[in-house]
C-alpha cells in the first residue's frame, strides 16, 4: 500500500483548541466516502507554527498550506484538492498580506526565518569535511587567496555592514582594518567562543553543526589582517563542540586547508584551541586575551584596543562565532547581497536561542528588523499553557527586559538600545504573567555578582549592594528610598565600571524599574507579589465561612501554625507559617487561599 498524498493537521495546543481534532475526524470521514482512504493518509503533527492563523492544514507532497480551516471546509478540500487536484484558493494564506509584510520590511526576499549563519546546521554531517565542501565550503578561501588582496577583503567586509554579533555591534570591517593598518609582524586572529549568557546556545550549536565555517572564516580574517596564527577560545563546558572543532582542524590540516602554504597560495595559517574554565568575564575581550596568555582572566582598560595591542602585545582581532560564520557567505555572495538584508543600520540576520515560556523553543535565525511579535508568536508558536505574554529578556545578564508595548519594534542594535535593552549575544527568554520581574532582576544580579572579577569597585561593590536591595524588596522589607538608591547605584556602575560586564550589569534592574515600577511598588507598599514567585510575600488565609473545622490542615501543617477547635473555623498564625502550601492542597472545601 502506498499513499499518494498526505494531509497534515496541526496538533499544536492552539490549533487543537480551535478545533483541530474535529478536522482530523472530518478528513477521515470525507476521504472514506470519496474512496480515497487508501490513497491519502491523514496525520496529526506537532505545532507547525503560525498559530494565529490556525487550525492549519498542510497537503503533501504539494506543500499547499491552508489556514483557519473549519470542519465545514474539509469537504471542499477533499473534493477539490484531493480528488480534482485543484487548490482551494479561498483557504490559502492571504498572499496580499504576505506582500504587505515584504513592503513594510523593505526586504527583497522576505521570509521569517532566513538562514545564513545556520546555513549548514542540521544539514551537513559536521564531522565530514566533504559535506562542508559540497555546500560551497572553502570556496571563499579560494576566492580570497587567489583573487583578492587583503585590502579588498577588508573593504568587502566594511561594505557589507557586518557588525559584531557578540553583543556590542562594532563593525567587523573596522576591527579588521585597524589590525591590518598596524605595522607588519606577528598578529593574531582570535575567535571568541566563550558563550556565557544564561539561556544562550547559538555559538555552541553553530560550532557543533558547522565547525568548518569558523575555520574558513578565521583563515580569511588571518589573510586580511596579516596574521598567521589563530586561537579559538572555547569553554571547556562544551565538550561536543570542542571535539567537532578538533576533528575539523585535523581534517583541514590533512587536506592542506590549514597549515603551511594553503592550496599552494603561499599563505600559511594555523588554529589552536584554548579552553576557558567557565568564567563569565572571560567573554570580555581583554579578559579573554589574558586568559589565553595563561593569566587570570581580568579585563584591562581600553585603549589600547586589542586591534593595536592585544595578545602578547601584538595586534589581535577578536570576533564572535556568529560574526565569523557570516564571513564566508559574504565573500561568496558579495557585500551588496548581504547589505540588502536587514535594517538601515544593522545588516544581515541574527540567530536567537528562543527559550522560556514559549511553545516552540529553539534555535532560530531571522533577518534584522524582524519584530519580537513575529519571533515569539509566529515562529515560537506563542506562550506555553495559554498564559499571557508579559515580557521578553534579550542580551542575558547585560540586557534588559522588554515589555509588551514594544512587541512590534523591528529588532536591531539601535532600536533595542533605545528601549533599554541590548541585542546581546542572542539569548531570548520569554516570560509570562507567572514570572515576577523583581525576581528576574534578582536572578540576573545574582549571576553577575557571582561572575564579577572584583577588579573595579563599581561592579564589585555596586552589584552586591543592588542585589541586597533586591533581596530586601522581595522579602517584603523594601522602602521607597531603596528605589532611589538603586537608581543611583545603577548609574554609577554604568558610568564607572571598567569593562562591559560591570557597565551593563545594572541593565536588568534599570529596565525593570523603567517598565515595571508598579510591580516594585506593590512589593514595597502592599507587600504583595502578583505572580506569587516571592514566597515571603505570600499569605495563606482561611475563609471562616467555608472552613468546616475538619482539622485536616492543622494536622498537615509542618510548622504547627494552624489552630482551631474541631468543627470551628481554623486560623493561621502568620508568624509561624513557612508558606509551604500544604494546607491549601489538603483542604477539601476550598477554604484556604493565598495571595
Amino acid at each position, binding site marked *: *500500500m*502506498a*499513499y499518494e498524498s498526505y494531509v*497534515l493537521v*496541526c*496538533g499544536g495546543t492552539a490549533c487543537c483548541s480551535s478545533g483541530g481534532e474535529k478536522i482530523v475526524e472530518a478528513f477521515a470521514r470525507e476521504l472514506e466516502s470519496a474512496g480515497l482512504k487508501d490513497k491519502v493518509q491523514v*496525520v*496529526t*503533527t*506537532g*505545532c*507547525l*507554527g*503560525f498559530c494565529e492563523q490556525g487550525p*492549519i492544514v*498542510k497537503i503533501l*507532497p504539494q506543500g499547499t*498550506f491552508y489556514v483557519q480551516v473549519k470542519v465545514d471546509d474539509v469537504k471542499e478540500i477533499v473534493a477539490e484538492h484531493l480528488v480534482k487536484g485543484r487548490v482551494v484558493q479561498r483557504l490559502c*494564506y492571504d498572499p496580499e498580506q*504576505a*506582500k504587505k509584510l515584504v513592503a513594510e520590511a523593505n526586504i*527583497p*526576499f*522576505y*521570509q*521569517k*526565518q532566513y538562514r545564513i549563519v*545556520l546555513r*549548514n*546546521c*542540521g544539514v*551537513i*554531517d*559536521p564531522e565530514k569535511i566533504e*559535506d562542508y*565542501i*559540497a*555546500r*560551497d565550503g*572553502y570556496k571563499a578561501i*579560494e576566492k580570497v587567496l587567489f583573487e583578492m588582496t587583503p585590502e579588498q577583503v577588508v573593504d568587502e567586509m566594511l561594505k557589507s555592514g557586518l557588525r559584531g554579533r557578540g553583543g556590542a555591534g562594532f563593525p567587523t570591517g573596522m576591527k579588521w582594518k585597524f589590525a591590518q593598518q598596524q605595522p607588519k609582524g606577528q598578529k593574531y586572529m582570535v575567535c571568541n567562543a566563550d558563550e556565557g549568557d544564561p539561556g544562550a*546556545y547559538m555559538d*555552541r*550549536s*553553530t560550532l*557543533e*553543526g558547522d565547525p568548518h565555517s569558523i575555520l574558513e572564516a578565521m583563515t580569511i580574517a588571518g589573510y586580511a589582517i596579516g596574521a598567521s596564527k589563530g586561537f579559538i577560545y572555547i569553554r571547556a563546558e*562544551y565538550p561536543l*563542540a570542542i571535539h567537532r572543532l578538533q576533528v575539523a582542524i585535523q581534517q583541514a590540516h*590533512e*587536506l*592542506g*586547508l590549514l597549515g603551511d602554504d594553503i*592550496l*599552494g*597560495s603561499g599563505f600559511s595559517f594555523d588554529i589552536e584551541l584554548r579552553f576557558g574554565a567557565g568564567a563569565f568575564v572571560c567573554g570580555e575581550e581583554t579578559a579573554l586575551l589574558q586568559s589565553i596568555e595563561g593569566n587570570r582572566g581580568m579585563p584591562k582598560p581600553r585603549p589600547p584596543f586589542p586591534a593595536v595591542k592585544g595578545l602578547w602585545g601584538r595586534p589581535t582581532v577578536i570576533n564572535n562565532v556568529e560574526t565569523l560564520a557570516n564571513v564566508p557567505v559574504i565573500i561568496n555572495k558579495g557585500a551588496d547581497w548581504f547589505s540588502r538584508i536587514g535594517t538601515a543600520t544593522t545588516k544581515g540576520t541574527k540567530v536567537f536561542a528562543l527559550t522560556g515560556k514559549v511553545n*516552540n523553543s*529553539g534555535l*532560530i535565525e531571522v533577518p534584522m528588523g524582524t519584530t519580537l511579535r513575529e519571533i515569539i508568536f*509566529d515562529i515560537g508558536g506563542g506562550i506555553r499553557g495559554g498564559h499571557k505574554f508579559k515580557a521578553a529578556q534579550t542580551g542575558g545578564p547585560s540586557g534588559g527586559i522588554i515589555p509588551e508595548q514594544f512587541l512590534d519594534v523591528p529588532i536591531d542594535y539601535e532600536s533595542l538600545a533605545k528601549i533599554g535593552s541590548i541585542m546581546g549575544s542572542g539569548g531570548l527568554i520569554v516570560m509570562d504573567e507567572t514570572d515576577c520581574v523583581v525576581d528576574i532582576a534578582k536572578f540576573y544580579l545574582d549571576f553577575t555578582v557571582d561572575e564579577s572579577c572584583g577588579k573595579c569597585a563599581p561592579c564589585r561593590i555596586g552589584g552586591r549592594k543592588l542585589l541586597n536591595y533586591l533581596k530586601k524588596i522581595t522579602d517584603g522589607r523594601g522602602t521607597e528610598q531603596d528605589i532611589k538608591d538603586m537608581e543611583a547605584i545603577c548609574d554609577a556602575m554604568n558610568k564607572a565600571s571598567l569593562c562591559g560586564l560591570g557597565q551593563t550589569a545594572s541593565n536588568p534592574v534599570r529596565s525593570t524599574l523603567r517598565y515595571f515600577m508598579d510591580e516594585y511598588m506593590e512589593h514595597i507598599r502592599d507587600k504583595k507579589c502578583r505572580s506569587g514567585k516571592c514566597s515571603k510575600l505570600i499569605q495563606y488565609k482561611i475563609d471562616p465561612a467555608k472552613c468546616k473545622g475538619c482539622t485536616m490542615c492543622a494536622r498537615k501543617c509542618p510548622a504547627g501554625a494552624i489552630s482551631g477547635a474541631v468543627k470551628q473555623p481554623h486560623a493561621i498564625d502568620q508568624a509561624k507559617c513557612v508558606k509551604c502550601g500544604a494546607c491549601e492542597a489538603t483542604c477539601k472545601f476550598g477554604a484556604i487561599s493565598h495571595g
Partner: protein
Amino acid sequence: MAKLTLADLRKMREEKQKAMDMRDSSNKDVQVVVGMGTCGIAAGAKETFTALIDTLTEKGLTNVLVRQTGCMGLCHSEPTVEVVVPGMPTVIYGHVDAATAKDIVDRHIVGHELIEGKILDKPSVDIIKEA
C-alpha cells in the same frame, strides 16, 4: 590524505555536490538524518541513532544511509530525525525515542506511511518567500 591544490578542491566539490544532489551515496537511496547537537544528544539522540541502526540491520535494509548532523533548531522536540524517502515528502520527526525510531523504519521507510503525531515538518512560517 594528500594536500589539495586549488584544482583538486574544485574537483572534489563538484563530485561531492553531484553525489548530494542525487541523494545517493553508494547505492543508498533513503536517508535518515539524526540531529546530534548537544541538545539532541541530551534528549537521547544517541539511543535513537542506535535504535535506527539496529532495526535497519535486523530488517536487512542496506539501502538506507543513517547520518548525523548538528542542531536543526527545533530544540523543543529533540531528538529530531529527518527522513528522506524517494517518492515521499521529506519530513522531520520530533521526540523520536527508540520506539519511534523503530516505527520510522517499519512504517515510514518500509510501509511508506507517515507516523501519527510525531511530524514537526519545517516551520510553516517559511511559506512567506520571495516576493
